[in-house]
């Protein structure tokens, strides 16, 4: 399968972000915005520290996607924002969740599922229906809480042999909350052509 281009990926991701924003706004009961900032290429060492470095702890709920435009979709937060998001999803007052138990991880997984479904729908719309179109196969969401460089290193590993790692950065804001998340999409293979300065910007 040929590698995707940065422009095509940006189009698909923008469509996915719009759909995910609408779904999450319903799910969370308040306006939620996911905006694709850019499809960009970073050196490996910068890609793995993009969401933090050193002794910080990063919570990542992710999903592998196989088929057309394969890659890893990952929702990343710090503990405070992640647990606040879980409280919001579970209808609890903020601060109720103090650690990542099974139910809090489930809440994060469901959020990732919603975003993942939006991505799959966008890829399907982009690819059209054809016998040659590879089937879209999402993995169940997984949860990792670890050092940022260790987690991101795992996510970008499929591109580690290249000089630069292509990834997508988004803004993910939930209105009237201090919750801040990052949504990252890392294509499984390097993109065919370098991103133009406008690629993926909104």
């Amino acid at each position, binding site marked *: 399968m040929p590698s995707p281009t940065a422009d095509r990926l940006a189009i698909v991701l923008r469509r996915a972000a719009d759909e995910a924003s609408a779904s999450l706004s319903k799910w969370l009961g308040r306006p939620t915005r996911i905006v694709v900032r850019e499809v960009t290429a970073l050196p*490996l*060492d910068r890609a*793995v*520290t993009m969401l933090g*470095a*050193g*002794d910080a*702890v990063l919570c990542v709920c*992710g999903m*592998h996607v196989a088929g057309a435009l394969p890659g*890893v979709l990952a929702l990343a937060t710090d503990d405070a924002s992640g647990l606040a998001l879980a409280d919001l999803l579970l209808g609890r007052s903020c601060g109720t969740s103090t650690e990542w138990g099974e139910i809090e991880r489930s809440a994060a997984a469901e959020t990732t599922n919603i975003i993942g479904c939006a991505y799959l729908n966008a890829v399907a719309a982009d690819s059209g229906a054809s016998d040659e179109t590879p089937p879209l196969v999402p*993995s169940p969401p*997984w949860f*990792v*809480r*670890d*050092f*940022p*460089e*260790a*987690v991101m*290193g*795992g*996510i970008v*590993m499929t591109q*580690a*042999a290249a000089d630069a790692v292509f990834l997508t950065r988004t803004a993910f804001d939930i209105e009237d909350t201090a919750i801040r998340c990052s949504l990252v999409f890392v294509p499984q293979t390097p993109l065919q052509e370098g991103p133009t300065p406008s690629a993926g910007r909104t």
Partner: protein
Amino acid sequence: MSESQPCRNGATVVSIGMGEIGVARDGGTLRTFLGSCVGLVLLDRKRRLAGVAHIVLPDSRGQGQPPGKYADTAVPETLRRLKELAGDDALHLTAKIAGGAKMLPFQQGQTIGEQNVQAVERLLAAEGIAIVGRCCGGEHGRRLVVEAATGIVTVETVGGAGGTVL
């Protein structure tokens, strides 16, 4: 190297980023964070020298840049830098290794972490360098800290109590 910062005893801690190599002597401390990557530590305890390579992939396939990124180029380059630091070739080295975890689920077959560990083991054996401590595998990241003066290597995980001393 990515950064350096003072630690409590006044020594400088040098952070080794992904694919980088660092060397230190006497009071120097080297630190790196590992997932599926392998941290290779080479020590000359008598001369109080230490080198750390943060190895990402097992085989350079002829690319080799940066040399710390690949096991087959990181081992000779770390040796070269330690010899340069010592000022001669008369080193008595031992090795300690950590990392090589399976960070994400749904990785099938032999993981890249396992391949990294095996490649480092093979290359060290070829150089005649004994591995005297290891903390590899599992499904979690590691913080690896090396004190050149003592040769003590501390490996810690998120939420782990106390850490492991190699």
